[in-house]
């Protein structure tokens, strides 16, 4: 045990009670080491690159999700680490989806440690991001339909696929092109001759 490298943990939590609690709890487990704690996201941002933690425990309330900030977008250097929510009050389930794991205030020590291990492993697994960023035929087809002003439901009916599938295609289109708005996608479709100007007027 002693020879193994300790997993580094950073806390992003404003409550001194919770910070002290997590620290003391993890101090009894030799594989973990709390290397820092910060009361605000902004304080933490520049330190991440220096401290390079394996796990970042974040109070989701410190992340301004009302403006749909993704926690990873705020923490630019967080790519290699597991980012977990440390929840001490009610947080919308939708918000939790962006985290690699969720630790509740009532969790006992062993389940906290177990969850942290799982989150780290999930993070280390090779990303399934495709190396091809060109749009597929199907994606072009859907993009053209979006640009023409069709709704997801209409596109699904037209192509005989589920609305869910349309949405996942749209997510991929945005991920590949970096374009989020319908008007932006329309410009893309026009520039690439996927549609004609007369079709959007």
């Amino acid at each position, binding site marked *: 045990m002693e020879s193994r490298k300790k997993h580094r943990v950073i806390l992003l939590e404003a409550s001194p009670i919770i910070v002290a609690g997590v620290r003391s709890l993890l101090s009894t487990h030799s594989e973990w080491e709390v290397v820092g704690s910060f009361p605000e996201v902004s304080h933490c941002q520049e330190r991440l690159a220096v401290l390079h933690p394996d796990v970042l425990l974040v109070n989701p309330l410190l992340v301004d999700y009302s403006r749909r900030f993704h926690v990873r977008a705020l923490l630019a250097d967080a790519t290699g680490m597991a980012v977990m929510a440390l929840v001490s009050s009610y947080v919308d389930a939708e918000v939790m989806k962006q985290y690699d794991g969720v630790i509740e205030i009532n969790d006992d020590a062993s389940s906290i440690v177990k969850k942290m291990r799982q989150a780290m492993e999930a993070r280390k697994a090779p990303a399934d991001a495709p190396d091809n960023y060109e749009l597929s035929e199907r994606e072009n087809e859907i993009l053209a339909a979006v640009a023409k002003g069709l709704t997801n439901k209409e596109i699904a009916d037209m192509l005989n696929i589920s609305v869910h599938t349309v949405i996942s295609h749209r997510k991929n289109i945005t991920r590949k092109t970096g374009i989020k708005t319908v008007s*932006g996608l329309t410009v893309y479709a026009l520039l690439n001759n996927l549609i004609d100007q007369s079709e959007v007027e």
Partner: protein
Amino acid sequence: MNHLLFTGKMKLADVLMGNYRLLLVLDRFRLHLGFGEKSVEEVCMAHGIPAPLFLMVCNVYTFGDYLPGEGDLKAIDVRSLLGYLQSSHHYYKEKCLPGIRHKLDALEERTRNRSSQILQRFYSDYQAEVMNHFDYEEFTAFPYVMGLMEGRAVTEAYSIGQFEKNHSNIEEKLNDMKSILIKYLPDTEEQDMLRELLFDLFELEDDFRKHTLMEDKVLVPLVEQMERKG
């Protein structure tokens, strides 16, 4: 972090040397260059500008991780803040957005091609949307705040909580335009024009982000306090 921030005792000239982008802010406080050795406080005093507001804007525009805290907010005069926000709007409406429009028109004139016309159309829609948004702020949100200050009662028809909604779409479209220029515009000889356009867009995006922060993180919490008291 706070020890890094600009203070009222610093020379205004040094503040500007520290961040040239604050030159943009001067105009919004109707300040003209030629400050000599005067400190921020002296210049503010001489021009009737509340120094806490001026410093907050300078710090927000300069330090990416600076977020005004509760103590900072207490020092802010809401009426002056509204005045500042309005002159920022004026800058976007009268100078910045038309400037970009002008560059797009020039690009179209030079290339006479379909893709620059597509861009023009996209930008027209965008500009109209931003103008609409400013109109909403100036004709609905700001008068509401003025009303609160004059002691008008809080009604259920409107609250400052509705304020932030539109900001994300405006940011996203601006970002889309950058992606399109960088990634998808067909090859053209007019690289100088495209580069200038992109610089303008990046600049505007930064500026908008700070402006939005002044609205969402300074104005909105201050008005929410007023609503609770009201």
